């Protein structure tokens, strides 16, 4: 083939055209704002792929929103680019996939829901000096290793337990319940264990009037809970305090129905699985009056109304919940830090993240700001309850959309299912 030399190139009419364009519009080559890659580490396949996909969507929506508003203005309108990784709900994959994202140039990582995976990614990011903003993952331990590059927008297990007892105090006082016989159940992964153990520790240390009859742990991804529910039934508790995930949440409620376990209510001390649209869609009347203490969306927030409207339009049948909400917020935190850092250098970004004060009314709680450990000091949880087929914030009073119903007025099997 004939080689194309500079002379022959310029002799061609189109060659001249290209040169002219480059000369006249140098901006095409030189001042195009560069892209800033951010790595999103979510479990879009595997045991919690439903949650993982919702969170990736939350991350992506935030990136799209920032880009639509002109990108990172202090850096010449540089656009964010989300690099995607799927860790399949496996810790070892979380590490290797994060490593890949860092190699591909991610300036910051965001993710990953499972506390075990968060720990792995945080360790890696510490070694590689890459900032890591945890959107969701609650186990206290993650930020107690003295990591300098890890920040967490989500609430920690201690915060969950604290709030749970606060809300329980109010409920028991208002409903004249002096003592509650309860059973605590949780999944056997890092989050489930820490969440269950922290709740139990608080009940014990504060001598809270809950008699814990049993603490039942079962494997994550379990497909039959009949044995566990049979055990719960023989203990005759007033309240079940479950820490579940979407699959076992449905199994639990169905088994409680089938085995006719009488209860005053189900109160999650901070549990996924009890507020997702699929839980309400499939469980119908059985989901009614289920309560859960979660870092929920702020139903009165302007930002929430706006983001939720677009999210529901993009993904019909879905709404912004704890996970997709925090996934959105965490990317906003990164964008805010980039804006102030005016740089993608790790040290600058970490310094900016440390000084974060991002006002928001997407989720309950105040502006996002990090303490010395990297935890969001203003992350907070609300008590939600399913009423009339929708999630309602019922406590604290200042954020409440509806009054809570406790004990539930009808047992599960009296609800005409």
């Amino acid at each position, binding site marked *: 083939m004939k080689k194309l030399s500079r002379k022959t190139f310029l002799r061609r009419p189109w060659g001249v055209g290209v040169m002219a364009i480059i000369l006249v519009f140098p901006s095409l080559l030189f001042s195009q704002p560069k892209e800033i890659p951010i790595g999103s580490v979510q479990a*879009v*396949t*595997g*045991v919690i*792929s*439903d949650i*993982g*996909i919702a969170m990736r969507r939350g991350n992506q929506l935030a990136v799209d929103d920032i880009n639509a508003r002109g990108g990172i203005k202090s850096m010449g309108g540089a656009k964010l680019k989300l690099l995607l990784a799927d860790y399949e709900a496996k810790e070892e994959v979380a590490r290797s996939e994060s490593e890949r994202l860092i190699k591909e140039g991610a300036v910051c990582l965001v993710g990953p829901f499972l506390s075990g995976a968060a720990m792995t990614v945080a360790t890696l990011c510490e070694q590689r000096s890459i900032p890591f903003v945890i959107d969701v993952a609650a186990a206290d331990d993650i930020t107690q290793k003295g990591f300098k590059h890890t920040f967490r927008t989500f609430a920690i297990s201690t915060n969950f337990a604290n709030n749970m007892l606060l809300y329980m105090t109010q409920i028991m006082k208002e409903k004249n319940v002096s003592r509650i016989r309860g059973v605590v159940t949780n999944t*056997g992964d890092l989050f489930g264990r820490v969440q269950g153990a922290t709740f139990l520790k608080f009940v014990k240390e504060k001598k809270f009037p809950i008699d814990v009859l049993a603490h*039942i*742990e*079962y*494997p994550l*991804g379990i*497909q*039959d809970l*009949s*044995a*566990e529910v*049979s*055990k719960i039934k*023989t203990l005759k508790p007033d309240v079940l305090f479950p820490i579940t995930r*979407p*699959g076992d949440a*449905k*199994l639990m409620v*169905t088994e409680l*129905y*089938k*085995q*006719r376990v009488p209860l005053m209510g189900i109160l999650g001390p901070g549990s996924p699985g009890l507020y*997702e649209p*699929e839980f309400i869609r*499939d*469980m*119908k009347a059985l989901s009614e009056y289920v309560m859960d203490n979660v870092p929920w969306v702020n139903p009165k927030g302007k930002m929430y109304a706006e983001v939720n409207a677009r999210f529901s339009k993009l993904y019909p049948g879905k709404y912004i919940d704890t996970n997709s909400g925090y996934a959105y917020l965490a990317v906003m935190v990164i964008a805010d830090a980039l804006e102030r850092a005016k740089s993608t250098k790790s040290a600058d970004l970490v310094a900016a993240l440390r000084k974060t004060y991002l006002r928001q009314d997407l989720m309950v709680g105040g502006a996002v700001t990090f303490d010395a450990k990297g935890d969001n000091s203003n992350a907070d949880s609300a008590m939600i309850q399913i009423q009339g087929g929708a999630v309602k914030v019922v406590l604290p009073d200042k954020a409440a959309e509806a009054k809570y119903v406790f004990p539930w007025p009808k047992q599960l099997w009296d609800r005409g*299912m």
Partner: protein
Amino acid sequence: MNVTLLLQLAVSGFLLGGVYSLIALGLSLIFGVMKVINFAHGEMMVWGMYVAYTLLLWTGVDPFLSFLVSAACLFLLGYALQRTVVNRIIDFPEAMQVLPLVGMGMVFENSARLVWGPDYISPRSRFSLSSLSLGDLMIDVPKLLAFSLAIIITIAVLLFLKKTDTGKAIRAAADNRTGALLVGTDVNRIYAVCFGIGAACVGAAGGLLVPIMPLSPHIGAPFTLLSFIIVILGGMGSLSGAMVGGLIIGVAESIGPELITSLFHGAGLDLDFPHTMKQVVSFFILIVIMLLRPQGIFGGRRG
């Protein structure tokens, strides 16, 4: 020791064990005839579940009827899989047979995710919330129905293998492949039919499980492992072994943690056997059986 609780656990475990048996039956049949372990077994079960779920959604047909459609669809899938993938690897060393089937498992799982989405689905069907009470005991109706149908299907498969010509040809091919070829059996077709029947069993089991457990694309893999344990326990390739193995594992996983906890308490130890370690019970039984009877409970000399 709470006798009612243990009895309740035994009953639930026994009923679920029946369905486990049906899942394992397919695996055992395929292994017994082709000496291939179907590592995509659990994922094929999930496809059976989704077929029954889709029919329920579109036509309202109860999974306790539409499991027949699941079985038919999975038969075709199994037949095609044998012809296209398994037949090519049938003479390969075991280690090399594993990979294509594990790969097919991934293909099945992720294509289900693409088609039906990642969410856990618990569709309402006629019997999904039914239970009967017998004194203090609660009998889960969907599990009882699934158990009964699983037993009927198992007997039907056994009769098919014993009485029909195709069944006899399958057994002949299993017994001596060269011999079967020499007397004019189309072994490739027989293998494909056999793989289809194995897949149909697991597809039917999937359909029967729809009213019992939430379905999601990823739930298959643990069932492959479970049926593998059952098959080894009962004896590789033994169909009655798969039946008994399923029941043993069902009861053991259900009753194990509570029984062991009761034993601990009886011995004056303040220890609870955690439910997270359910599978330890099945593996323990497996190891004991392997030590005492390496060919499995019903395994013959070939095992």
